[in-house]
Structures are given as structure tokens and as C-alpha cells.
């Protein structure tokens, strides 16, 4: 239990998707103009990461990893399909996003309308695929570790995007040099936020 919590906290603060690995940067920059929309995107990302990472974990454990196919019979034990993981992961992500979209539309129309366009768009958000690839690289022991990693990464992204959106809402009233307005200053602020987040590196978990 403690271990799961550690992974969760670690992926929020120390291995933050945005500040430590720059994943999901495109939507992070494009959708962070107001707090409200960035909240919507952030929640959608938490949702999708929390589902796709465990599903991809199962896929990796039982189909793709070297020797994973041994449950089919001893003659399959030699197979190594890991070169297929990109295409399988992206297919899972695209279809899970579609599925999540349909489920949310059916059972939570209010949430669906507030997420709007963001839900289909996160199929191509690098944070989602990145989550699955990191999960594969780090070789988590059980599906629960993978799930808490997925959820934690999603919450980290949510934290980052809501933070930058709040700053951008305020910075509109400041006198930024014309050439830096918009994109430039956002980059620099993100860099400074990243440096601030690095102070979490000292925490031993």
C-alpha cells in the first residue's frame, strides 16, 4: 500500500510529466489560456491515463513482452513482440479514448459537454503514450503499481496545466515586452516552474 502511494506521489511531483519530461507540452501550451478549459483537459487526461496505463500494462505483460505469450503454450515462450509495442499502444489509446468518450457521453452528459473537444484530442497527447512507454520501461511489478503511476502522472499534468493557466490569466495585465508576449513568456514561466518543481527531487521515497 505504502509503495503504491509512493509511486503516486513520485509521479505527481518528482517525475512530473510536464516539468520533468516535457510530455503533453503541445496541449499544455495551446489550452492553458484560461483556468476553466485547462481544468477540463486536465481531468480528461487523468481519466484517460488512469485507464490506458493499466490496459497497456496487461497488453505488455500478456502479449508483447519477451516470453509473454507462454500462457498460450510452451512453443510460444520464445516470442518477443516488443517491437510492436508502439503500434499496439497507440491503437489501444485511440480505441480507449473513443470508448471513454462514448461511456462518458452516455452516463455523464454534463461532464461530456464540459470536456468537449478535449477528449478526442488527447488520443494524440504525448503524455498518454508517454505514460504507457514509461510504464513499459520501468517494469512495474503489479497492475496496481501501473495504475497508481498512471493516475499520478495524470494528476501531475492537471496540476501543471492549471498552474500555468492561472499565471497566464494574471500575466495578461502585466507589461510584457512585445516580442515575448504569448508564447515566449509562457515558455520562460514554464521553465521557472520546472526549476521550482526540481526542488522536490530531494524527497526520498
Amino acid at each position, binding site marked *: 500500500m505504502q509503495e503504491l502511494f509512493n509511486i503516486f506521489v513520485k509521479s505527481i511531483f518528482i517525475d512530473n510529466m510536464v516539468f520533468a519530461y516535457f510530455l503533453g507540452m503541445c496541449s499544455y*501550451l495551446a489550452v492553458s489560456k484560461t483556468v476553466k478549459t485547462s481544468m477540463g483537459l486536465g481531468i480528461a487526461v487523468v481519466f484517460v491515463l488512469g485507464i490506458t496505463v493499466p490496459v497497456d500494462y496487461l497488453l505488455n505483460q500478456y502479449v508483447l513482452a519477451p516470453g509473454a505469450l507462454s500462457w498460450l503454450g510452451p512453443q510460444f515462450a520464445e516470442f518477443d513482440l516488443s517491437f510492436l509495442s508502439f503500434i499496439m499502444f497507440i491503437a489501444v489509446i485511440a480505441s480507449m479514448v473513443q470508448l471513454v468518450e462514448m461511456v462518458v457521453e452516455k452516463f455523464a452528459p454534463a461532464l461530456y459537454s464540459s470536456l468537449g473537444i478535449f477528449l478526442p484530442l488527447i488520443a494524440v497527447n504525448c503524455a498518454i503514450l508517454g505514460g504507457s512507454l514509461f510504464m513499459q520501461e520501468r517494469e512495474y511489478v503489479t497492475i496496481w503499481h501501473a495504475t497508481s503511476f498512471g493516475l499520478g502522472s495524470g494528476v501531475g499534468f492537471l496540476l501543471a496545466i492549471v498552474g500555468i493557466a492561472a499565471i497566464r490569466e494574471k500575466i495578461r495585465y502585466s507589461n510584457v515586452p512585445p516580442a515575448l508576449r504569448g508564447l515566449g513568456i509562457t515558455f520562460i514561466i514554464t*521553465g521557472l516552474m520546472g*526549476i521550482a518543481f*526540481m526542488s522536490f527531487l530531494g524527497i526520498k521515497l
Partner: protein
Amino acid sequence: MSKDKREKEPLFSAKNRKLLINPLHKDNPITTQVLGICSALAVTAKIKPAFVMTLSVIAVLGFANVIVSILRHGIPPRIRIIVQLVVIASLVILVDQVLKAFVFDVSKQLSVFVGLIITNCIIMGRLEAFALGNKPWPSFLDGIGNAFGYGWILIVVAFFREFLGSGTIWDYPVMEQLGVYNFGYQNNGFMILPPMALIIVGIIIWVQRSKDKSLVEEN
């Protein structure tokens, strides 16, 4: 009919040249279109991985644009995203296998970022915005042009980070050769940390936009 037209148009007509040149500066994917930032920042601690990443993106983007452009009349609009993803993912698998075979150490350094070319928004963005509506040759030029536009930013950022952070250029110890360490110079370890990449890109944007006022945003 379209064949005649293509034969009349020279391969490097003014329009086609523009496709190639514009993304280098005015329509730069990173500083103007804001595409493909993720990988641009993560692989730039050293020039070598940045260079390999650039080559990979050039290959994937050029070919993906051509393939999608050839298929553009056959792809049903409703499922185009997944078709594009499949095209891109297959190309990325090829690139990944090549990297693993020939430059294994760099491939280890790039870790998940080769795979993340799949979701690199430059590629999806160019496929959506250009290849779906244009012939293969212009699409190819557009792809190559954008990949170069992406690449030069990558290499500039990597140059500064490696030079100031590790005192080397392409693993060649420039600072040591210059002997500046004897005067008490120290490498700025800060430059190797990931956030500095963001700040350097921010500065590049600043310089570019101060030179070219037309790119300045309202807010």
C-alpha cells in the same frame, strides 16, 4: 489531367521552394506553430541525440506526408486519424529498429522519445493541414521543410546546452582545449537540467520576434 499539370510545373518552382523555406523561419513549427515541443525539449541536453532525433523526424515526416498524400483520396474522413496514426507508427517502428541496430547508445539515450515521435504534433499537424489536401511532391517538400525547421531549433538549443552545460561540442571537450578551467571557469550544471531548454527556446522566440515584428502576438 493532373499529370500534365505536374509535368509542366518545375520540381523546384517558386511555390515549392516556399514550402521548403518558410518553415525554417516564418512558419517554424516550434516557434510559430507551437508543434512538437515535447520532444524538442527533452532530447536537447547534448547535440548528438538532438541530431539523431532530427534525422528520425525528417525521415518519418517526409515519408508519412508522402504516404498520406498518396492515400488521400482513399481515406474515409471519419477514420483518418487512426489511419494516419497507423502510417506514422509503422514508420516510427522502422526508424526505431534502425536506430537500435546502428546507434544503440544514442537510442538508449533517446529512450521513449523515439516512440513519442508517433504523437509528435508536428507530424499529425502537417498530415492534417497539408498532406491530406496536396499532391505527393509538394507534401514531401512540406514535410522535409518542417522537419528541418524543427531540427535547427533542436540543434541550436542542444548547442547552447551542451556548450555551456558540459563544455563540449559533439562530445569534443572545447572548453578543456581552450584551457578556461585554469582560470577558474566552471561548467554551468544548470544548463543540463530540463527546465533550461524551455528558457532557451523562450529566448529564441524572443530574438526571432524582435527581428520580425509580424510574428508578435497580441497577448
